[in-house]
């Protein structure tokens, strides 16, 4: 069972890696902001499965923290991108 959970964690990690390659390379700012989103869901799944597979109950607390901070990071990136328009205009309809 533990081996299966670590295997599942490795698989989802590979998916996160593929997703990161795509989002970090992406031609626009919107793609890059998705990187934080991707880590927020995929990374937490990897964390929970890895923690359950190696007997670390604290992984759930780390998952909670990661969920909150990844959300905060995503929003900070959106605000940052909204301000970095080349023409200097503000994105105020958020």
């Amino acid at each position, binding site marked *: 069972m533990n081996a299966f959970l670590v295997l*599942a964690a490795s698989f*989802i990690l590979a998916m996160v890696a593929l997703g990161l390659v795509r989002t970090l390379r992406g031609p*626009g700012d919107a793609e890059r902001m998705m990187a934080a989103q991707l880590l*927020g869901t995929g990374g937490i*799944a990897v964390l*929970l499965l890895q923690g359950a597979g190696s007997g670390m*109950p604290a992984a759930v607390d780390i998952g*909670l923290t990661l969920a909150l901070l990844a*959300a905060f990071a995503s929003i900070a990136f*959106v605000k940052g991108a909204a301000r970095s328009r080349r023409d200097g205009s503000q994105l105020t309809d958020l």
Partner: protein
Amino acid sequence: MRVALDLWTIVAVSAGAFFFLAGTVGLLRFPDALTRLHALTKADNLGLGLAVLGLLPRAAGLLGALKLVSIWLLVLLASATVSQLIARVARREDSA
């Protein structure tokens, strides 16, 4: 009972992993930012939800199970709102 719960964990986590695969395929193959965003959030949230469901039998007591479910709910809330915001930036980029 133990066997049934283990079977449940394996089935649910495998289904979750499958949805992560689907989400990543969508992220890689869809044509523009908005569709990619859709694949990312919907499939990955479902994948995380199924993984959490699979890990519930192994949770450390009622508090542990509550924490797992609240992680999923938090991620749902944050993803839903943040993808709205990212989509607005993407739409603005497209029309610029």
